[in-house]
C-alpha cells in the first residue's frame, strides 16, 4: 500500500512540476470538441443533447489514450521502469498507481471538457449537467484501466502508438455505448432511474477491466 501511494505521489508531483499532461489532455479535448462542433453543427434541444454527449465521449477517448500513454511512458525516461521492476514493488500495485494517475489526469480534463461542451453546444449549466458526472467518471475509470494496460504494451513496441488506439477503441465500445446513452439521457433531462441500466453496464465494465489489468499487468511489464 505504501508503495502504491509512493508511486502515485511521485507521478502527481512530477505532473505538478511541469508534466504538462493535464494541459495536453485539456488542449486535446478542446480541439476535438471544436472539430466536432464544426462537423455536426448541432441545433439545440434533444438533438443538441445527443450531439453534445457524443462529442464529450469522443474527447474522452482521445484524451484518455494520450493520458495513459504519458502515464506509462513517463517511466521510460532514463530507464526508471527497470528500477521499479527490480524493486520489491508489486507489479499490480504499479498498475494501480499508473491507473490512478491516468484517471486523475483524465478526470481533470473531463471537467474542463464538460464545461466546454456546455458552452459549445449551447446547453445550460444546471442539474442535468451534474447528472452526467457519474457516467463520465465511470467511463474515465474504465478507459484508464483499459488504456493503462494496453499502453504498457504499446510503449514497448516500435511503432506501437498505432496499437493502442487499434485495440483500445473496439474494446471500449461497450462503455462508449453506455456512456453516450447515459450522458444523452442525463442531458435531455431524464431521471437517473431511466438510464440506470447504462450505469450498470459501466460499472460492470470498470470492475472487469480493473480486475483484468490488475492481474495481467505483470505479464506486460516484464522485459524480454
Amino acid at each position, binding site marked *: 500500500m505504501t508503495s502504491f501511494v509512493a508511486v502515485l505521489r*511521485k507521478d502527481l508531483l512530477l505532473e505538478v512540476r511541469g508534466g504538462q499532461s493535464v494541459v495536453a489532455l485539456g488542449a486535446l479535448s478542446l480541439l476535438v470538441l471544436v472539430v466536432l462542433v464544426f462537423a455536426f453543427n448541432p441545433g439545440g434541444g434533444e438533438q443538441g443533447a445527443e450531439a453534445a454527449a457524443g462529442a464529450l465521449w469522443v474527447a474522452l477517448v482521445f484524451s484518455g489514450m494520450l493520458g495513459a500513454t504519458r502515464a506509462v511512458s513517463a517511466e521510460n525516461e*532514463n*530507464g526508471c521502469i527497470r528500477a521499479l521492476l527490480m524493486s520489491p514493488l508489486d507489479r499490480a500495485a504499479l498498475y494501480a498507481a499508473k491507473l490512478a494517475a491516468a484517471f486523475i489526469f483524465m478526470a481533470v480534463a473531463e471537467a474542463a471538457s464538460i464545461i466546454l461542451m456546455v458552452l459549445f453546444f449551447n446547453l445550460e449549466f444546471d442539474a442535468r449537467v451534474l447528472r452526467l458526472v457519474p457516467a463520465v467518471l465511470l467511463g474515465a475509470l474504465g478507459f484508464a484501466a483499459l488504456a493503462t494496460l494496453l499502453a504498457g504494451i504499446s510503449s514497448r513496441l516500435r511503432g506501437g502508438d498505432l496499437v493502442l488506439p487499434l485495440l483500445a477503441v473496439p474494446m471500449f465500445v461497450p462503455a462508449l455505448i453506455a456512456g453516450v446513452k447515459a450522458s444523452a439521457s442525463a442531458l435531455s433531462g431524464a431521471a437517473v432511474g431511466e438510464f440506470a441500466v447504462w450505469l450498470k453496464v459501466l460499472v460492470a465494465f470498470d470492475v472487469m477491466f480493473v480486475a483484468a489489468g490488475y492481474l495481467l499487468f505483470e505479464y506486460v511489464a516484464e522485459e524480454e
Partner: protein
Amino acid sequence: MTAPLIEARALCKSFGPTPVLRDVNLSVEAGRAAAVIGANGAGKSTLIRLLAGLSAPSLGAALLFGEPARSLRPELRRRVGLLSHQSMLYPNLTARENLEFYATLYGVQDARAVAIEWLERVALGAAAEARVRGFSRGMEQRLALARAMLARPDVLMLDEPFAALDADGAALAAALVREAMDRGCAVLASAHSAGALAELGFAVFALGRGTVMSAEAAAARRSAARPALARQLS
C-alpha cells in the same frame, strides 16, 4: 563454502538466432566480488540484466540467492541493488526526492534521513534540493550509486561503475564498494578494463565471444597466438 549469492549456470542468451552469451558460468559468494571485463558489445550489460532478473535466459540459469532471478520474491528483491547504464533517476525530481522515493519502495525506515545521509556519502549534500535534470554525468552516476546502495543490499550489480567519474568520484565509489564487500555483500561489476576493480580485490573474468573465462585462462589464450580472440580480450 557458502552458497553463492550470484550465480550463472551454463547461461545462454540469444536474440533471435544470434547468440550473445553462451555457456557462462560464474558464481559470487557473500563478501566476494567478481569483475567481468570485455569490449563494447561483448555482452556485459546483457549478463548483468540476466542476473538482475530483467531479462530471461535462453538456456541455463541466472540465480540470485539460489533462486531464478527472473521470478524473485519481493523479500529477496529488496536485497538486490543495481547500477546500470541508464541512471534510472527522475529528471524532474530533486536528488533527495529520488532517493527518498526508492528508499520508500525498498521499505527503508525513515526514508528522508537515509536519503540525506547517502547524499552526504556521495558528496552530493550541497545538491540535495537540486533537480537531477541539471546534473552532470558524474553527479548522476554518484546519485545512481547511492540509489543502488541505500537499502544495504546483499547483492550488488554494477554495470561500469566508474564510468563518467573523475578521480575523486572514483575513489568515493571504490570506498563504498569496499565497505559493501566488508559488510558481506556479493558484488558483480563490469568494466572495460580490470585495473581499478582488481585493486579492490575483485576476481577478474574476461567476457569474449559470448563466454566467460578467468583472467589466467584468458592470458593463456592470448599467448597461444589466436589473433582474433586476443584482439577481443586485450
